[in-house]
């Protein structure tokens, strides 16, 4: 009888947290520095990336998976 397989490993959640942090830094850098509105087209991907990473890390901390 095998135990339930973890959906997200400790290493995976760490990588996800790091990716989320990088996305957040890029997002804030674009917001502060850019003079071209075309960079704002990357916001949906970056914002959703930050949100998904934050949600996964919080759920991991709460031992949801």
């Amino acid at each position: 009888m095998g135990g339930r397989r973890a959906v997200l490993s400790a290493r995976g959640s760490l990588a996800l947290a790091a990716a989320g942090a990088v996305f957040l830094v890029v997002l804030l850098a674009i917001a502060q520095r850019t003079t071209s509105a075309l960079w704002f087209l990357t916001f949906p991907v970056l914002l959703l990336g930050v949100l998904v990473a934050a949600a996964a890390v919080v759920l991991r901390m709460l031992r949801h998976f």
Partner: protein
Amino acid sequence: MEQQIERSKIVVRWIVAVLLFAAVTYLKRRGEVDVPWTSVLLLTALLALLNLAYGVILRSGAPGWLKYATTATDLALISALIVITGGTRSVFYFAYFIVLVSNSFRYGMGMSLCVATLYNLAYASVLFAAPPGGDLTVEAVKIFAFWGIALYAGYLATRFQRQTRILQSYEETITRLRHEVAQMKPPAS
């Protein structure tokens, strides 16, 4: 259900169109916005045409793509209105929120995220078409604020939908129990 929602959106779209047309006319007569009549009339005609087309489509049901198409065209028309009425200084920026609230509360979190993404792309296009010049930090903050409101509206809509489902199951249980009680025979005295 979706057909009913899209029909009510058509009514709201007519009301908003009339109000926006009246606002543009008023501001133009006062000299607050410098926009040619041809642009105003063209936008209004386009909106009326699209609204009539949606009405025709909805006669035979609501296809799955329709809610996304109506949302995208609404945001595109608002963006065009913003571009011709002063770009980032346009007083019609608030109209984006009508689309957000109207769709989020009707369809939930998924649609909230869809509206926020489409708004993000549309507003970036507005900034590209009518650049305010210099630093764009204020515009980035506007986009972040919109995302924040979209997520909050989506969360509230999700909660509301869950409560509606619970209430519906209670009503079904009450109806079933009433039916069972009505079928029970009275005890013999």
